[in-house]
């Protein structure tokens, strides 16, 4: 049975929620990325004051960053990559590529065309991620605009409007309209914290009215912003009728609908032309001859004067003696290697848990979404697939690659399915948004990141939520950020709090390089 809340309770609840949000933002949820940070400058001369032998363990974005800077500073660098490919979670899937998911290996059968790719991992570069952008510029990686939110994309929930999809623009316009109407009703000068002048109040009312496109009586009766039901060019357009607030609130998309185009996923976002792995190839153009592939680390032994790394390649065990190690192997895999790390180091490694995530994509026989006025952006679906992404590149070409599922929370709904079951689930959930979906798409690929060979996890999880670290966790983070024995640097977004962004991984490498350069100075 539903209970109704009073206006006072609602206002209190709103206040509490907004207060918490503001606190979180002020508390620095971004962790190591203050908004004013510039691209961190690497002083190559300082980094190369004396020449060392260095092993980079793992060819992810943090490892490649370290390798690139160290090689440029004149060090002797060897990169050991366990997989057949570099890049880690920066992975673009194209024709013929192997997706080496344990228990679900696939080759991608998309058409062999430059625009027919699927960014299965990293897919967006915010304009504030200056270090990623810095390397794109330096490595000659051409960028184009990525479209995250599209008002013509869909919102679909079986519980809303009988399951009929509604345009994002119509949904959010209605949501804003109803919210503005509520604001206006509750707006009483005596209830405001500070006295407002007549003219300030007038402006505030105008803002609220415009926020929700209210009528003169401050009521929401529908808006042109939701798109026209008919007309609009040769004749005046007619509004869609307003959707009842109860309908709007019947989907869990409601709380996030206005957020998708804000903050880090707000404009301007970018993507490399031709796939996110253009960044990886940019690095490999510089350091590729230093990479050993299918080279799986077995043992890491810290010595007073360096580090011994034992690895297996092609069935042969080999040893690499180096002065320093930069290591981006996931913490949950490091715990399975022979090592002589200090006990508190191992304890901290064991604390970090592996994240889970699932993505899937199809080749589309036609770009049917363009016939629905959709060019780029994301549809929201209240089903395990969560999202459908439309490529912002390859506009009006014959075919395209459409992202058919992105479960960024757990992906567990899909994990325990066979490939055929995963594809069927993506089709069944997707055709609620696009009626002819099943006939339009083919050659599906799926990727459960926590099952990927040599990774077994998506972004690291230090906590169950985005809460700040507690004291013990702060100590563990400090332990892992400090080089073990002064020789072994752990890098990657696993030692950042704002995980799953390339920027954090790059900054973790820069932090380690800075410490390393300082040590070179002390030794000199």
């Amino acid at each position, binding site marked *: 049975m539903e209970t109704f809340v009073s206006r006072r309770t609602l206002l209190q609840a709103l206040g509490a929620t907004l207060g918490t949000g503001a606190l979180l933002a002020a508390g620095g949820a971004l962790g190591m990325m203050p908004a004013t940070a510039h691209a961190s400058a690497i002083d190559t001369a300082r980094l190369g004051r004396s020449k060392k032998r260095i092993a980079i363990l793992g060819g992810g974005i943090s490892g490649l960053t370290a390798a690139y800077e160290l090689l440029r500073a004149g060090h002797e660098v060897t990169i050991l990559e366990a997989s057949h*490919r570099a890049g880690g979670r920066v992975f673009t899937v194209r024709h013929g590529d*192997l997706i080496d998911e*344990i228990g679900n290996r696939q080759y991608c059968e998309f058409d062999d065309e430059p625009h027919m790719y699927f960014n299965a991992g990293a897919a967006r570069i915010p304009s504030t991620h200056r270090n990623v952008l810095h390397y794109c510029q330096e490595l000659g990686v051409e960028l184009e605009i990525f479209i995250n939110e599209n008002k013509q994309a869909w919102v679909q929930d079986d519980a809303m409007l009988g399951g009929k999809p509604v345009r994002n623009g119509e949904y959010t316009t209605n949501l804003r309209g109803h919210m503005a109407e509520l604001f206006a009703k509750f707006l009483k000068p005596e209830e405001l914290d500070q006295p407002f002048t007549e003219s300030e109040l007038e402006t505030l009312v105008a803002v609220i009215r415009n926020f929700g496109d209210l009528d003169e009586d401050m009521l929401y009766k529908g808006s042109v912003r939701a798109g026209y039901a008919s007309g609009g060019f040769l004749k005046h357009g007619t509004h869609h009728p307003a959707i009842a607030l109860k309908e709007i609130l019947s989907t869990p998309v409601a709380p996030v609908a206005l957020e998708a185009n804000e903050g880090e996923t707000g404009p301007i976002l970018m993507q490399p032309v031709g796939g996110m792995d253009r960044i990886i190839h940019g690095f490999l153009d510089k350091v590729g001859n230093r990479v050993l*592939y299918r080279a799986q680390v077995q043992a890491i032994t810290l010595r007073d004067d360096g580090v011994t790394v034992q690895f297996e*390649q092609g069935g042969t065990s080999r040893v690499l003696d180096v002065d320093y190690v930069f290591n981006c192997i996931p913490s*949950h895999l490091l715990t*399975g290697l*022979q090592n002589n790390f200090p006990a508190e180091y191992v304890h901290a490694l064991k604390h970090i848990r592996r994240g889970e995530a699932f993505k899937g994509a199809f080749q589309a026989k036609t770009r049917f979404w363009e016939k629905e006025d959709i060019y780029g952006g994301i549809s929201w679906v209240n089903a395990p697939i969560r999202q459908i992404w439309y490529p912002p590149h390859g506009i009006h070409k014959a075919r395209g690659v459409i992202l058919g599922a992105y479960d960024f929370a757990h992906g567990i709904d899909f994990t325990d399915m066979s490939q055929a079951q995963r594809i069927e689930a993506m089709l069944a959930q997707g055709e609620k948004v696009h009626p002819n979906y099943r006939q339009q798409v083919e050659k599906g690929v799926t990727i459960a990141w926590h099952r990927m060979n040599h990774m*077994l996890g998506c972004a690291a999880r230090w906590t169950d939520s985005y809460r700040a670290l507690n004291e013990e966790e702060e100590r563990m983070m400090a332990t892992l950020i400090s080089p073990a024995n002064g020789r072994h640097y752990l890098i990657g977004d696993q030692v950042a709090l704002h995980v799953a962004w390339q920027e954090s991984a790059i900054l973790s490498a820069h932090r380690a390089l800075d410490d390393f350069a300082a040590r070179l100075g002390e030794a000199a």
Partner: protein
Amino acid sequence: MNLKAMRFSLAAILALGLCRAAVAAPPAESREAYDDFYCTTCHGADGRGNYGVQAPKLAGMEPWYLQRQLEKFRAGLRGTTLDDPAGLEMRAMAEKLSDASIAKLVDWVGQWPDVATAHTVEGDAAAGKALFTSCAACHGAQGQGNQQLGAPALAGQSDWYLLTQLQNFSHGYRGADPKDSEGQAMRAAVAVLPDEQAMRNVVSYINQFQRSAPVAARTTNTKE
């Protein structure tokens, strides 16, 4: 791609004459090759076990037991519930294995040196000793295992894994299927351990045993 083709031929050359089986034949194009030798990604270097992904130690495991468990995972007798996520992961892998692959994997695992595991489970070993009496009937007085009874060695196994499995048997996440006769027997046997503390106690007692390397009965029932 030329680079890919080069890497493939390099991998093929390296695979020659090694203990590993030849890589699976890729399709006509020079696509990345793969094989079924995934064990060490999860189970750690030389199968030493990895707490980080809850993958038990394989080094030193009896070949007959390893083969039987791979077959059980493949048949869907283990790893069937979301309450046993590590088991689910193993089942997904095992479902893809042929008899020939299982035989090769068992041989591969058999080459790994048995290394001591760290003790991570705390309990009252003295109290565990009394409880262990009924375990010893099948698993042996020193937890050395008994192939005739189908009971694997317990000595030397990752202690957190022993604890997890006792809980899995107790909850029916393992040993619930009538087709898994050994599992059913084990599920009945854990009834003597009333709660988690009792399980911790008995695991603490097992931790006192030394595994006698090499494990007895290192013969495998390889199907040709």
